[in-house]
Every structure is written in C-alpha cells, then in structure tokens.
C-alpha cells in the first residue's frame, strides 16, 4: 500500500485575532492537529491599545484544504477575520531577511555589488563580513540568498511574509 499525495497550491492568509494569551499556540496547533502545512507565519500586535494582532500565514494545500483552513480559523473564538489574499485579488507580499556573508577579495566585492543590485542595505560590517538587510517578495529574497550562497553565505534570518490587499480599502 502507498500513501497518496495531492496537488497543492500556495495561499497567503491574513488573520486578525484578539491579542490574548495562547492565541498563537491555538493557531499553530490547529495547523498541526489537522495536518495542514505552514510555510511561514508572522505575528505582531497592530493596534494602539494592543487589543488586536495581525497574523500572516503562508500555507500550501489542495483547494478544498485551503477552504477548510479558512473555515477552521474562522471557527476559533478569538479570530475576528480571515482573508485569503491569494483568493481576493491583487495584493503585496513582503519579507525581510538578514543575510550574513563572509569572505575576502573578489567575493566580498561581488557580494556588495549584488547587494546594490537587489537594493539590500549593509547593516553590519567587518573587514571580512557583511550583514545585508533585504526587503522584498519571497522570490526576490530567495534569489538573493541563492547568489550569496556562492559568495560565502554564513547565516540567514527571515521574518516570513506579511501581505496586504492593493487599493484604498482596508480589511
């Protein structure tokens, strides 16, 4: 007997939640308990009175599973709203990464040149290393990291995606 796998698609979900103890565990746990995938998850308090947090989840699954994820998230009492950005139309996705590269000579120069091309900032420097800060879509960050891998990549830290619908309306 073989285990069957189904075709998946990538979706970005924005989830507005009451900023209460355990909410992140509830959401992350929902994904593991029901066998859903999380590619990235970001969370931060976004209101003045610290009452509401915005969570952005990048997930993968067959369309029926994505629909279930949406419904299961909405079922949680502290969840106010779930928006599937991928489903809803034109939207932005941004991610920040810190990328540490070490090396000397030509590699070091090349790393700096590429950072310029990618509009990555140097936020720390020694004579033998840089830390770049890069902001962009996950694909842009991916390709920058792939290039740095050839030039002495030491360490990467990524925030995961935050997203927002284009246009004047809020969610």
């Amino acid at each position, binding site marked *: *007997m073989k285990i069957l796998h189904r075709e998946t698609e990538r979706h970005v979900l924005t989830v507005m939640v009451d900023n209460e103890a355990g909410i992140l565990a509830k959401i992350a746990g929902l994904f593991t308990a029901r066998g859903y995938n999380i590619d990235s998850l970001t969370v931060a308090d976004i209101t003045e009175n610290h009452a509401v947090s915005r969570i952005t989840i990048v997930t993968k699954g067959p369309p029926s599973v994505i629909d*279930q994820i949406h419904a299961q998230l909405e*079922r949680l009492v502290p969840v106010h709203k779930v928006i599937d950005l991928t489903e809803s139309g034109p939207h932005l996705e941004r991610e920040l990464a810190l990328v540490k590269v070490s090396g000397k000579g030509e590699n070091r120069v090349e790393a700096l040149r590429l950072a310029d091309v990618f509009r990555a900032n140097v936020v720390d420097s020694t004579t033998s290393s840089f830390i770049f800060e890069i902001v962009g879509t996950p694909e842009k960050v991916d390709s920058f990291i792939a290039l740095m891998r050839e030039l002495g990549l030491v360490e990467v830290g990524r925030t995961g995606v935050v997203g927002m619908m284009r246009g004047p309306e809020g969610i």
Partner: protein
Amino acid sequence: MSEEKSGAAILVESLVRQNVEFVFGYPGGAVLPIYDELFSDTRVRHILVRHEAGAAHAAEGYARSTGKPGVVLVTSGPGATNAVTGIADAFLDSIPLVVITGQVATNLIGSDAFQEADTVGITRHCTKHNYLVKDPSELAATIDEAFQIAMEGRPGPVVVDIPKNVQVATATWSENAIQRKNRYSPRKAASADEIAEAVDMIARAERPILYTGGGVINSGPRASELLRKFQEITGAPLTSTLMGLGAFDHRHPDWLGMLGMHGTYEANMAMNECDVMVNIGARFDDRVTGRLDAFSPNSEKIHIDIDRSSINKVVEVDLGIVGDCATVLEQMIAAWGKRKQADISEWKARIERWRAKDSLAYAKQVKGGTIMPQLAVERLYALTRDKDPIITTEVGQHQMWAAQYFGFDKPNKWLTSGGLGTMGYGMPAAIGAQLGNPDSLVIDIAGEASIQMNIQELGTASQFRLPIKVFILNNEYMGMVRQWQELTYESRYSNSYSDSLPDFVALSEAYGWKGIRIHDESQLDAGIKAMMEHDGPVMVDCLVSKEANCFPMIPSGAAHTEMLLYGDTVAGTMEDEAKALV
C-alpha cells in the same frame, strides 16, 4: 450592589447567575477554595463522582438529556487530565460543557509544581475555547462568555482553568449583568436566496432523501417538530445518523432507519440512489459515508450546518447553508408555502423493495435457550416503551444493537458516544440524565467490557440514590473488536476475550445496588420486569450469544451498496487499503 469577593465566591455566584443546578466534580488541592465556597452554598448542588472521567460524562448526559449546559469541576493535574476524554467526547458530539479546572498558583505555573499540568495546552484542540484566568476581576466575564460559547452556535466544551491564588484573591463582584464583549455571534438564519434554491431543488427532486443528524437534537426540541413538519409537506423519506435518533418518529412509514456502517439496507441504498440529498445537522462522518468516491454518486447535495467548517469538509456539496437547524427548517417550511408534493411514489416503491430485504433480521431461534442480544434489546424496548425511557449506551456491538432495535420517537432520549466512541460513557451519562430528569426511567445498555471502564460510578448512583438501570449484554468479548477480527484478521481474536470478569451481580450488590442475572431466554422478560420494578439502581447481567455479529454492516473501505447482511459469507481478510481505514 457591588462588594469585594474572593475568586472562588465570584465563580460560585457566576454559576448561580447561569442557573446551574448541578456541578459534577471531584475535589483536590487546587480547587479547595472553590469547594469551601460550595460547602455552605445550597443553590448549586455538587455531585461527587468517583473519577473525573465520570464527571465529564455525567455532565454530558445531563446536557444531552436536558438541553442545558453541563458543568464540571475538577482539580489541577490528574483531575484535569482524567476529564480530558470526556471533554474530547463532548467536542466531537457537540455537547455544551463548562469545565472548571483548578490550577497551581500563577507564580508556580511552569515550575513543574505538584499536580501541575498544562491544562490549557492539553485541552486546546478538544475544546471549543479555553481560558486561563489570571485575575479574579476577569472571572465573572469569563464564566459568562464560557457559557455563551458552550451553548451558542455549534455547542461544545469550554475549559476555564483557574489558578489557586486567583480563587483566593479578591475582586469586586457586582450583581448587575455583565457587559459582554460580543465577539461571538454565530449566524443562525440562512439568506432568502439559499432557502429559495434549496426549496426548488427539493421540490423538483424525483428521489429525495432527508439525512438528519445530531444537529437537529442540539438545536432543541422545536427543531424535531419542524423536521417532522418539513418531512410531512415534502413527503421525502428520512434517515438519521446515530446521533440524530429520536428527532423523527421511528414508527413513521417514511422512516428508513439509521444509515451508515450498521444502518439499514433501505437507508443506505436510498442514500446511494437518491437524486437530491438534504443533510440537516449531520457531518458526513466516515461511519456514515462508507467509501467516499462511491458515496451517493448521482445526487445534488444540500448541507445545512451551523458550523461553516463542516460544509465541504468531507463531501463537496452543491448548496451549503450555514445556519441553525430549527431556524433554517422554519425558513424552508415558510418558503415551501402551498407547493404540492411531487409524485415520488415510484421512489417509495423502490424503497419498499429494499425494505423487504428485512436487513435487521437475525437468527431468532438458537439452541439451548441462548439469548440473542438483538432479542434482548427488542424485549427491553417492548417492556419499557410506555415509560418513555432515556437510553444511554457504552460503545461497541451493544451500542449498535440498541440503535437498531430500540425505538426512538422523541429527541433527547438517546445518549451515546458517537464521534469519539468512548467506552465507559454510558453509566456516568445515565447518572447525569437521571439527575436532570428525576422522574424518567434511565437505562444504560452496556457491554461487559465497556461497563468496566467507569465501573466505579456505581458508588455515585448509590450515594445520590439514583435509580438508574444498567443492562449489560454480556457476551464475554469486546464484541465489535472480535467481529472485526473475524471479518478482517481471519478470526485471530487478539486480546478481545473478556477474561476474569467480575461477578456483576455480587459487584453491584456490594455497592448497594440490586443485581439480576439472566442466562436463559425464558427468564428474559421476567428479568427486565424485575429490573423495572425495583425502586433503586439495578445492574442486569444478561448473558447473550457469544458470537453474534452486528449486521447489516458496510465493511471499512466499502460502498453503501456493498453491505453485508445476516447470513452472508465473509472472506475473513481484507485489502491493506481497507485495513488502514478506521
């Protein structure tokens, strides 16, 4: 008027405000302040169980039979973990519970203190919602919201974990009603478009079927009345899940019996062949659908459910309607108006041909006076029906026989662990049901294996003088396990024999119950009558045929059309794909 009160006192006041009659619980270190409050308080009655699992199931039995929330009070650590099975059971069967758990003091949380367990973490995925209350000033509002969440929308268990220092510390208590956050307000009514579309689909159906579930029971007795009315105006045949039994009258000519793995031939065939299926408050459970790719292949499906996540979870439907069963049924009845029923006589004639298979037939005559378990349930029904009994069950063959051969015609009279399938549910559930319905006859139809899982609750029934009846169909096997081993593993009965059974008569007498043993068919009626006549708790040890199987049966991995009926020969083995299914 407002005054300063301890957290424990605020909790008790909050329970009184919710009109709580009974608290099912067990004391321990981390709930001593609450128990001290209960000591002198006569407004809330505490029912001392013998194990916290019993408390949770008793609260479920109370809730399911009365429609009110069940309340549980247990201590931290093992008190909470022992209650988890009952909480998970209530979660899967959508039973409203509010479970108060004690916790170690806030300054000790995380230090592996004595009787510390991460209750909120452990119960996170088997509760509808849970709380850790860190300040007594939050208690009143939290309890208020906990009851609201447990009862509204799809009901379910809510855990409120209260550290011991929060029970002792004080806060201001006010008699005035609490300002709710109003963050939880599930949708109840469907849109007019949805209703119109549903009614059109049903009206033009040639082979309609109503498939109803526990949601109709949860929606309240009015939902059952409206269901009967809707069935009457549409004329559609009706089948129900295990959890939905009693919402419709089993004597009605359009009643098809229960559907699913041990449902009737006519119910499953009608599900397979229908052209419009109306699912009202059921959830396409795997025990109902059989093999999914062969499930009702040619029907348009309507699904009415209060939980949006139930729709399209397992079976993709043509029209999903999020709403409360009673409200939506009322809307559909109104929208149906003066429409005439379509002529579905041909469909009903087909159903009658399926019904003629008599799929609940079994070998009535066996040599030596051995009692067939099906007969025992039939006689139990015949001799108790005029008392309108509440039936609880454990889990296994006896549960299915009770569902098949006992007749149900009213909601809230059938209490069983459907989703989680918890052995040991029946006796504590009967205790809760008896407390909530003091004048009713409450019978736990049990198996000799299941009953031992919460046998300690004999003492609870004795203490509170609850005249519950436990009717054990004793076949000396974990019968359903044995049946599957016979069908799937060539009769290798691995660990399914009930060895070293207690003498149930002597055991029950030791607890002050009456014990009755029935071992021959000739004693069956007299034994049941003796059970009924005794004004107190009775345990009946009814010895039944050891190798009877529960039919009809859709073997795992099979379709509705591939039912095994009594007398079919069975291969005794299965494909790996089928073996891998639960």
